[in-house]
């Protein structure tokens, strides 16, 4: 049985100017010990889908799904109190901005011990011991001293380590890392990713890594789900995805990788992800797709079969010649 299974998840926001669909019939499946990367540009609904699962969206959001289960528990029907027993313990999340994600008024030690106090049956001493152990695990030097420090007294990288320590404090089975390195500088980014994959290996937890950086995906993930304007447009294991992408959007993301660039100028995908007001008819990627024709602009494509990465495209790439002929 899969650890996490989401089928046909949609999230609508009630906004002043009407309903806005931020996530559109999305499927996610994660097995124990899996590393799934979710990639997509800014605004493609990566965070919203994960927040929906954690129950952290504001009340303006309406969540619908055919299935949303974690470890056999139906997340759609749990009460708020039951959900609070799961999130932070079995299912934890770390966020994009380490600096603003920690409470400025409490020491980092307090914030870590708080998770332990909430979910684990531990004495004061044990909590303190465990906090030190966690700091060592995430590579924070002088843990004993650092526990008494406030977030603003540490660097962004250190704060993200604290966030990670906090998230893994109760040994979760699923860790969701929402662009954990975007706010950090490049050298620190590599360290944090290494830390995350290392922890994943050591603890055997499943990891969902949200990112818009294909480079990060190549180094860490086992499977990749590509998200565009709230929809999943393709999903494949890492290697085949990099060698034969089936959706033009995936191909465009890959072409934008520095090491794949053929000219001096880095290619980028023209245009932006459609928002609330400029959602096109037919395929959502059609206005930016070099291969789009009238059919793409009129009719919304179905998902292709498993062998084609379930690409949501009328004209998937990397299809064998005979199939093309049909």
């Amino acid at each position, binding site marked *: 049985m899969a650890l996490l299974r989401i089928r046909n998840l949609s999230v609508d926001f009630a906004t002043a100017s009407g309903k806005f669909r931020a996530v559109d019939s999305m499927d996610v499946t994660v097995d124990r010990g899996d590393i799934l990367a979710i990639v997509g540009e800014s605004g493609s609904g990566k965070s919203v889908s994960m927040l929906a699962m*954690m129950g*952290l969206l504001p009340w303006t959001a309406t969540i619908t799904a055919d299935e949303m289960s974690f470890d056999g528990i139906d997340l759609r029907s749990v009460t708020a*109190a039951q*959900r*609070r*027993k*799961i*999130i*932070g*313990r079995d299912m*934890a*999340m770390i*966020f994009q*901005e380490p600096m*603003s*994600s*920690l*409470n*400025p*008024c*409490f020491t980092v030690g307090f914030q870590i011990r*708080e*998770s332990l106090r*909430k*979910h684990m049956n531990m004495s004061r001493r044990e909590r303190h011991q465990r906090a030190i152990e966690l700091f060592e695990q995430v590579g924070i030097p002088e843990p004993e001293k650092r526990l008494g420090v*406030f977030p*603003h*007294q540490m660097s962004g990288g250190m704060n993200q380590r604290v*966030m990670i320590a*906090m998230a893994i404090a109760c040994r979760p089975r699923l860790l969701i890392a929402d662009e954990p390195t975007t706010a950090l500088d490049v050298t620190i980014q590599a360290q944090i990713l290494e830390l995350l994959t290392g922890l994943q290996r050591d603890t055997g937890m499943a990891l969902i890594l949200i990112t818009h950086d294909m480079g990060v995906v190549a180094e860490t993930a086992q499977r990749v789900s590509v998200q565009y304007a709230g929809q999943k447009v393709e999903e494949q294991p890492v290697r085949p995805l990099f060698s034969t992408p089936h959706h033009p959007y995936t191909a465009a993301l890959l072409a934008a990788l520095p090491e794949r660039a053929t000219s001096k100028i880095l290619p980028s995908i023209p245009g932006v992800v459609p928002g609330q007001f400029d959602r096109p008819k037919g395929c959502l990627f059609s206005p930016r797709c070099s291969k789009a024709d009238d059919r793409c602009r009129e009719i919304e494509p179905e998902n292709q079969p498993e062998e084609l990465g379930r690409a949501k495209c009328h004209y998937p790439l990397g299809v064998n010649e005979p199939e093309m002929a049909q």
Partner: protein
Amino acid sequence: MIKYFLSKLLTFVPTFFGVTLISFAFIRVLPGDPIIVMAGERGLSDERYAELSAEYGFDRPILVQYWDYLTGVLQGDLGESFVTKKPVWDEFFALFPATLELALCAMVFAVVLGLPAGVIAAVNRGKLFDRTLMSTALVGYSMPIFWWALLLIIVFSGNLGWTPVSGRISLLYYFDTLTGFMLIDSLLSGQDGAFMSAVNHLVLPSIVLGTIPLAVIARQTRSAMLEVLSEDYIRTARAKGLAPVEVNGLHALRNALIPVITVIGLSVGTLMGGAILTETIFSWPGIGKWMLDSIFRRDYPVVQGGLLLIAVFVMIVNLTVDVLYGFINPKIRKR
């Protein structure tokens, strides 16, 4: 932290001199001559007037008078009341505890109700409680104290007969002043019912005086909470699986308190102003009533000295708030 404290303390100095100047000037720009007022209806001869003028030093240039006053103040001498001939200093400290007790109770009333109300309103933003509270707060904020006091007196003292209309304690009780705080003194006296009587006398004036601060604190808490609730660290707190009480009451409120503390400090100044009116309405024997009487009598030393001492008190409160602010905001504390 020490440096922060000292820099705040330094701002004290110009304010202090400013207040001596303003309090000195304030009473003198009011029309009316203290000697004539003292003489009353009978009036007095020109010679006697000149004599008294010289005695009080009014015949000298105004700047010299100010200089005398200032040097006196710096030596801790605030002069004597024209009317009672007692030192201003002594009169002030005899009456100040009554005002302080009233102000403290008003503040406790405002904070104990205002903070939770603001928090609940922010958490239930846009719902019925929030809208009711905010419109009530607006009414409370713009309510004329005088009218509000009369309304409460009519209902609670008049119609219901629950509370007394004036004074600090029933005439049935008599005991020595030890601390000057009636709640404490009445307890220490050990007399049956004395404490309850003191409480009864305090309720209405405290509510009247605390209403505006209550409205201000509730509104400020709400807006500070709203700001804080959209912060990333609140999402983190919720992601830990913390209950709403812990998220709102600990993680959010702790941050929202930083601006609210400032507002509480500032409303002490408003409270001192409101005390004058409230004390007059309820015949509360505090410095508010004392100051008002002195203004009518053109009792220069009392008005000057009283204003100065009140200002110093407000400054001390603000300094305390600044220190508290430093403690509650780690970004300042660790500097």
